[in-house]
């Protein structure tokens, strides 16, 4: 049996760990609130944007825009969005697993896969594959619309130059504080029907006056649409990350409490055994003196 001092030190150590995990839990909770607020702020923009986009795409024939052009798919680019930091349970692992599976499936069809990685976790995961075309680290803490724009422009550039024929996004979807799921999205070419279905509510009265032409507006809107998509994926991942970390740290704190409880039992048992042994000694000594 471990000595009293050993057990006591161990209890002290676990208590410190519990303190840290507890603090991380609270930090994650605060950051989650921030991330959710950011999502809330963005929602009205995204909704109005989609409404306008729906109006526009219904008003025009699905003209040939380079960003909507469907080509024979030889190279698929996957945009993987994960968090920069770990200690958030299996959140990143799930996303990476999904990306791995998608990659394997595409490669089995004889397609080439390139990766654009956002977040340190997926960069380190895919580093050895040598398929990373572009990486963005240290963004997920404080990102803004323009960060999303940089990424979107890069991907669009690659798509337009013909280096990739299809782009998909793999990211973590924020369902609720308790549930985050990895998700996959078709990104490029942009499908007009995908845009239209999100806007079943928009009932435009009469035809619009467009300035400049619908085509030229589309040229401006499509890249913006890409920004919105990327930004949205990043927002979801950041909210999911904090939610996942919150529950992971909560679990860790509970586990610490369990360990402390069982260690305390051991400690008390050892203490009692010590006392009993001492008493036996005293009683034995007294007997011998008689």
């Amino acid at each position, binding site marked *: 049996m471990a000595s009293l001092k050993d057990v006591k030190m161990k209890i002290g150590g676990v208590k410190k760990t519990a303190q840290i995990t507890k603090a991380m839990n609270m930090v994650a909770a605060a950051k989650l609130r921030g991330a959710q607020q950011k999502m809330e*702020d963005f929602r009205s923009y995204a909704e109005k944007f989609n409404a*306008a986009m729906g109006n526009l795409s219904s008003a025009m024939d699905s003209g040939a825009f380079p960003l909507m052009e469907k080509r024979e798919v030889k190279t698929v680019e996957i945009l993987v969005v994960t968090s920069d930091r770990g200690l958030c349970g299996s959140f990143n692992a799930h996303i990476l697993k999904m990306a791995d599976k998608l990659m394997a499936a595409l490669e089995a069809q004889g397609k080439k896969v390139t990766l654009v990685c956002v977040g340190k976790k997926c960069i380190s995961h895919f580093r050895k594959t040598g398929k990373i075309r572009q990486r963005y680290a240290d963004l997920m803490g404080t990102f803004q*619309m323009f960060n999303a724009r940089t990424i979107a422009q890069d991907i669009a550039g690659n798509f337009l130059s013909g280096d990739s024929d299809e782009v998909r996004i793999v990211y973590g979807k924020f369902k609720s504080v308790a549930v985050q799921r990895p998700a996959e999205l078709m990104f490029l070419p942009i499908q007009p029907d995908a845009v239209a279905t999100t806007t079943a509510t928009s009932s435009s009265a009469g035809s619009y006056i*467009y*300035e400049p032409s619908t085509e030229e507006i589309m040229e401006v809107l499509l890249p913006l649409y890409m920004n919105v998509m990327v930004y949205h994926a990043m927002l979801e991942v950041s909210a999911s990350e904090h939610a996942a970390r919150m529950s992971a740290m909560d679990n860790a704190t509970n586990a610490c409490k369990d360990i402390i409880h069982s260690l305390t039992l051991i400690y008390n048992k050892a203490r009692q055994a010590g006392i009993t042994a001492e008493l036996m000694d005293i009683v034995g000594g007294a007997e011998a003196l008689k």
Partner: protein
Amino acid sequence: MAEKLKLEVVTPKGVVVSKEVDIVTAPGYGGEFGVLANHAPFLSTIKTGVLTYKSGGQDEVLMVSGGFCEVSNNKLTFLVESAERGTDIDVERAMRAKERAEKRLAEAQAHKENFNRTRAEAALQRALSRLKVAERRKAS
């Protein structure tokens, strides 16, 4: 001016303005345009520049950058990448940005770099609009 129209300026960071206004002037694709109540449905892209609106006899100015606007049913919605009020604008920073952009523009022109040139032009446009809004703010 009995009839009013509802103006909404929305950015990815949230709704900046949501107000009943009399008239709005905005930097459109083909130049400045004004919108009054009962305007026909209309959709236009927005350039970086100055957005003015009048509500209750009071003039308000905003700096907006890149996006588009939609008019329908007396509702005017601006979806822009950023929108700033005069009070939020740091004049000194804008001045510095302007000088920097001008320098870059000159450099880019000297080297005939198209990419840098567009970027510098966009930056210059933003800085100039900011300064304009800040100035109008002071004047009123």
